[in-house]
């Protein structure tokens, strides 16, 4: 059982793992061969059954026919002896022989019954009887037509049972019926013969019993007629004597001259015979006396004799025609399987080949080659599959091309955005720097305001007291003049000298105090928010005014100062609302720086024409004031610190470092404008003041 399941499992695995091709072939073979085998098997079994049924009917018919003939035979004998028993010859013989026997105790001489005997002999021969026995009522054989060992013996006292002679005698005597004995070897018959007895009744009285020995040739002829029984079939009469079973007719396959055969006990054959003699009609497959399997049909006949008749035929002969069928079927199955495997292979190929092609193409497609196309002939499902594959491939191809285009489009878009983003980031960075600067400036501004405020008071003291001291010095000089005569020359001179020194000192204090005061005031102005009124002005006018003002201011400080001033002022410039003093200061600051720069450069360089260019222009939002000079220029490092308070490149004492810081505050915070710087070190510097038209 375990094995069986393992096999089943391996079969299952085979079917799971095997290719479609082998599966198709297997299924093909199974589907075609299994029904063939199945039908062959059923046909074989059915045919076998039919053959057996037909033969059974045949055997039964033959059996029935032979039974009938045998019964008829005995019936004829029956009638014959009944007729004979009433024959005058028989009655005569019986009467005389009986009388003679009872008188003399021996057989009557033949001569006395000569006529009767010859007549009876003739009738007997005609009716196929061998011999006639005459028995008196006490069972003594008082006469026989032919000489016999039975003569003058009592049948009821026979030592050897001769064909149940006593039984048939009693039956005839008591029941007044004819009765037939079983077969027995008895002279003069060579084969076993049987006896028939009948009462002899004369004038209504039973005078004896006639027993006739029957010539059984006819029965043997019937039995050994094998018509319709083929080469192996035969008919057998069986009987039971005592406990022994006998077959009492010649056996076809026994190869001896014997008529009677003992059937060995305990064999299937003897069991079969026993059943027959028990009155059962039987048809079955039995091993016969030779040990050969035979189909036997048997039935009971002649209850008085306890006979059975069996007709049989060898199974081998019976099944011979279908053995041929078996071989034929086998051959058919074999050839069919070859054809089926061939066809199956072909069909499998037809199915799997396109699939393989499809697989290959699909793989190619998967590898990226979308130009695949399958060509299949015919108009089946696979061709349709191929068509749809082709359609799919084409569509896929189109789709992918379209996709490429879209991707390029998007890439460009993204690149543009990237550039934009970079710009925005740069701007953001700039704004961030500016914001940081503004914050720094704001904090410095407030710090400066605090410091200026604190310094202003002591500075006032210094200035006031310096002026006061100067007054006192003058007073002392006047006083000295008055007392100069009282003093020695020497003392006076010394005193004068001291007074002069003191005056110089006080003046210096006063001068530097005033300068400090100016610085502080500037600082305070720086920190102070816009205080002035906003008023509409023409910026060109202011610029003109301040160019000359600052120029003259420079000239006043250093008469060697020289500059070429170029003005490109746009006359159409619109009126702008600004806090005028503040913008003035910005302009002044920047112009001063420009002059200073060109002046310094002129000191260092010969053959140099210092130029300061001032121009105004505008657009719809802003007014632009450009102040350009070809002075020293500003290094890049410094540009970022330009607007930091107290940062200056001028030597100490010449600048406070607050000018540009203040200008930046005014323009950026006061007017929401801007100051841009372009410069190349040693070449030029340009400041652009941007003022919004709508403040």
């Amino acid at each position, binding site marked *: 059982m375990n094995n069986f399941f393992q096999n089943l499992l391996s079969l299952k695995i085979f079917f799971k793992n095997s290719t479609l091709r082998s599966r198709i072939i297997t299924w093909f073979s199974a589907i075609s061969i299994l029904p063939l085998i199945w039908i062959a098997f059923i046909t074989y079994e059915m045919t076998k059954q039919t053959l057996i049924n037909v033969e059974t009917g045949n055997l*039964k018919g033959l059996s029935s026919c032979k039974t009938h003939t045998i*019964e008829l035979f005995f019936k004829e004998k029956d009638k014959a002896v009944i007729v004979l028993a009433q024959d005058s010859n028989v009655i005569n013989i019986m009467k005389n022989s009986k009388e003679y026997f009872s008188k003399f105790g021996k057989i009557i001489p033949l001569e006395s019954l000569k006529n009767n005997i010859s007549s009876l002999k003739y009738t007997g021969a005609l009716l196929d009887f061998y011999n006639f026995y005459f028995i008196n009522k006490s069972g003594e054989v008082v006469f026989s037509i032919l000489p016999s060992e039975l003569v003058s013996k009592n049948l009821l006292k026979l030592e050897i049972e001769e064909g149940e002679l006593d039984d048939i005698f009693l039956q005839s005597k008591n029941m007044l019926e004819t009765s037939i004995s079983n077969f027995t070897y008895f002279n003069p018959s060579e084969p076993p013969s049987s006896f028939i007895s009948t009462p002899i009744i004369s004038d209504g009285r039973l005078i004896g019993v006639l027993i006739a020995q029957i010539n059984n040739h006819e029965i043997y002829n019937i039995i050994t007629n094998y018509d319709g029984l083929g080469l192996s079939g035969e008919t057998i009469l069986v009987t039971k004597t005592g406990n022994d079973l006998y077959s009492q007719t010649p056996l076809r396959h026994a190869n001896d001259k014997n008529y009677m055969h003992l059937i060995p006990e305990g064999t299937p054959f003897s069991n079969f015979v026993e059943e027959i003699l028990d009155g059962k*009609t039987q048809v079955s497959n039995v091993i016969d006396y030779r040990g050969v399997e035979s189909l036997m049909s048997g039935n009971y006949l002649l209850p008085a004799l306890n006979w059975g008749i069996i007709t049989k035929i060898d199974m081998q002969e019976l099944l011979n025609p279908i053995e041929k069928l078996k071989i034929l079927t086998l051959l058919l199955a074999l050839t069919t399987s070859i054809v089926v495997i061939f066809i199956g292979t072909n069909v499998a190929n037809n199915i799997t080949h396109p699939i393989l092609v499809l697989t290959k193409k699909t793989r190619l497609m998967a590898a990226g080659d979308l130009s695949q196309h399958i060509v299949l002939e015919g108009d089946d499902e696979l061709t349709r599959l191929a068509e749809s594959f082709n359609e799919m491939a084409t569509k896929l191809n189109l789709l992918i091309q379209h996709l490429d285009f879209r991707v390029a489009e998007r890439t460009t878009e993204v690149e543009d955005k990237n550039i934009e983003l970079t710009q925005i980031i740069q701007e953001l960075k700039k704004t961030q720097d500016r914001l940081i600067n503004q914050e720094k400036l704001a904090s410095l501004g407030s710090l400066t305001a605090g410091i200026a405020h604190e310094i202003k008071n002591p500075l006032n003291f210094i200035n006031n007291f310096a002026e006061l001291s100067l007054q006192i010095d003058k007073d002392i000089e006047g006083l000295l003049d008055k007392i100069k005569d009282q003093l020695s020359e020497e003392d006076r001179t010394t005193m004068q000298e001291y007074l002069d020194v003191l005056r110089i000192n006080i003046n210096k204090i006063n001068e530097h105090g005033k300068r400090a005061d100016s610085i502080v005031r500037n600082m305070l102005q720086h920190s102070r928010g816009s205080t002035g009124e906003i008023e509409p002005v023409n910026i060109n006018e202011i610029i003109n005014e301040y160019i000359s003002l600052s120029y003259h201011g420079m000239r006043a400080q250093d008469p060697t100062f020289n500059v070429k001033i170029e003005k490109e002022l746009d006359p159409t410039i619109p009126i702008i609302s600004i806090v005028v003093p503040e913008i003035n200061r910005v302009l002044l600051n920047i112009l001063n720086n420009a002059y200073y720069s060109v002046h310094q450069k002129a000191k260092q360089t010969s053959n140099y024409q210092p130029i300061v260019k001032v121009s105004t222009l505008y657009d719809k939002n802003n007014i632009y004031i450009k102040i350009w000079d070809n002075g020293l220029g500003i290094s890049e490092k410094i540009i970022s610190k330009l607007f930091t308070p107290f940062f200056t490149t001028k030597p100490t004492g010449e600048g406070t470092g607050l000018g540009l810081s203040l200008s930046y505050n005014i323009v950026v915070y006061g007017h929401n404008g801007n100051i841009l710087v372009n410069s190349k070190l040693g070449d030029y510097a340009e400041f652009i003041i941007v003022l919004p038209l709508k403040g």
Partner: protein
Amino acid sequence: MGWCRPMRILLWLLILSIIIFQVSLALFDIPIFAKPKQIKVGLIFSKKGFRSSKEILSENATLLAIEEINNAGGIQGNRLIPISIDPESDWDKTLKAIEILSNDYQIDVIFGGWISKDYNEVSKILEKNNALLFTPYQVEGIIESDRIIFMGTTPNQQVPPAINFCLEKFGTTFTFIGSNNPYTKIANVMMNDIINAHEGKILGEFIISDPINNSIEKAVKEIKKNPPKVILNTLTSTHTVEFFRVLREFSLKDVPVISFCIGGALQNRIENIDDFEGSYTIWNYFQNLETEDNALFVKNYIKFSDTNIIDNAAESAYASVYIWKKAIEDFGHIDPLNVLQSLRNITFHAPEGLITMTMKGNYAWRYSRIGQMKPKNEVQIIWQSSDPIRPYPYYTIRTQQDWNDMLKFFYSDFTGYNE
């Protein structure tokens, strides 16, 4: 394959069941080609009238056999449907019943049907309608019909053994007493011939006619004057009862009586059964027969019917159905003519022993048994034939022509059995 799991299981189950179906088709003879039919069988048994007590037993036995056969699967798979008609112990009604069953119902086989008058008339109806009749009752013999199967006892199965028994046991002088009917007359002829052949003496022959008045007493008086060694009694049931009563009355109980016509049913009806004690009766079958087949039959019969008595005819009726079944099964035809052919030499193990049909198939080889009545209505079997006895419709002691003429003569002034 793209089937889901339950579908695949279902598919395999389908394939499996188809294979099982095919195998079973080949292995077992499934009757799909031959539709199971119902075989109608006719039953004619009187439930009213003077025969009812006897025929009810036979009907019970017939129905028992039918039920047993149906329970065992019927005949070739066909169920038997009994269709019963009660002729009320009337001869004309019996004839009518045979006509109705064989013609109107188209029934092929009829069981029962006691024949009171003319066998030829019955035979003609059966022949016309192509049917068979199995009759389980005692018969005079002297008739051979292609349509009537005589399952009952023939005279030669009763008379010669009985006389032989008497000659051996009681002696050679006989007196006959019988009712005035063909059976008695035929039996008397036969008994006469046999006794004569054996050189016995017949001291008297009494025929009792209805109304009996005191004819039985007269006969017994005569018998008492010249008592035989044995009295052979062919009186019908009622007459027998009276006869035994008178015998007792005249203190003639010492003379043995052998009765040929009393059945079990009669015994049941007798008020004083002791009258019968010691007398003999000859039949094929007695209920207390000690064989395995009989024990089973008696057990089943008593369980099946509401009576516990089985007589010779009931056993014959039981055997009839089985013999008919065997004839069909052996040769496969239900058609009456084929059944008749098949009946030849058919054997059946009846409760009484082996029954073999004759070469012509219309009589049965049967055993003979002589029983002696014991107290409490019991029968002791004291003799039995060694082999079944061949039925001779025409006993060979006379020619067939003699017998036929004789029967014709006996029937000529006979008005029918009324008991």
